[in-house]
């Protein structure tokens, strides 16, 4: 059957889904080889090839039939690979000790703010509230570099005090 890709897409859009087999037959080897260059496991490659064609089928109603299929398929491959790598990314569960440690840290910051003078304390608190150096400089009407050095000094003071205790 000599049908152009455009005609095939139009037919699939009209509900003649058996024409999707032409697309699968034409591009499956190409997509398989392309994914094969990125992945090693045969099962993973096959799964991804299947997902690519299923994604393409699902979005075929929105696909512009005037455009070529190949670049669109490659774009799907790219997205599928991204999702694949993301799903295989090793994750570590947060250990209980880490949570406790974080809690302790927040306690020491509050206690050790007492060693700071009023200005240093206020600026450090503003940093904790999420203000940027520029915003703090504007608020306290001081040059940016002065603010930076005050905050740095305040941090060193609190750190020293924490180490002492």
């Amino acid at each position, binding site marked *: 059957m000599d049908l152009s890709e455009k005609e095939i897409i139009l037919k699939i859009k009209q509900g003649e*889904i*058996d024409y999707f087999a032409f697309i*699968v037959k034409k591009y499956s080897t190409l997509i398989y080889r392309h994914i094969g260059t990125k992945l090693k496991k045969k099962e993973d490659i096959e799964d991804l090839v*299947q997902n690519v*064609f299923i994604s393409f089928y699902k979005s075929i109603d929105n696909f512009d039939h005037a455009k070529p299929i190949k670049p669109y398929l490659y774009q799907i491959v790219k997205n599928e690979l991204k999702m694949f790598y993301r799903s295989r990314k090793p994750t570590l569960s947060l250990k209980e000790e880490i949570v406790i440690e974080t809690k302790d840290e927040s306690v020491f910051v509050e206690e050790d703010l007492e060693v700071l003078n009023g200005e240093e304390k206020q600026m450090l608190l503003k940093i904790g509230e999420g203000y940027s150096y520029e915003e703090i400089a504007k608020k306290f009407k001081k040059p940016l570099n002065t603010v930076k050095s005050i905050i740095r000094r305040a941090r060193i003071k609190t750190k020293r005090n924490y180490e002492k205790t």
Partner: protein
Amino acid sequence: MKKLEEKIIKRIYGLETKKTTIYIVSRFFLGLILLFSIILSSLSVFDLLNEQHSFDLFNFFQDGFEVTKKYFFSNLYNFYQELPQPLTYILLTSIIILLVLLVLIIKNSNKIKNKLISLYKFYKNK
């Protein structure tokens, strides 16, 4: 590679079977609910109007063209005011939604017909 192609096509048909079934069943039940609501609300409206003798307002049609011309709009307005408003709105809304649904079904009928033929061919040759 042929096995993989077959797997893909099989999954596509599985997906399409599910999608088409949901489409047909949902449209069927939605149509049925709307039809039921139209019948029920129109019967209620009719009964209420009959009870109020509101249809007597249209008796003036028998009194000749001049009388009809003179009282047509005022009688029509009186009849409108005697209509049970909430039920009438339900009836009208249901009719509009049913009409929209019918237009959409007619518009998509060719696509659904083609899909059903493709699915039939696939499962027959399986």
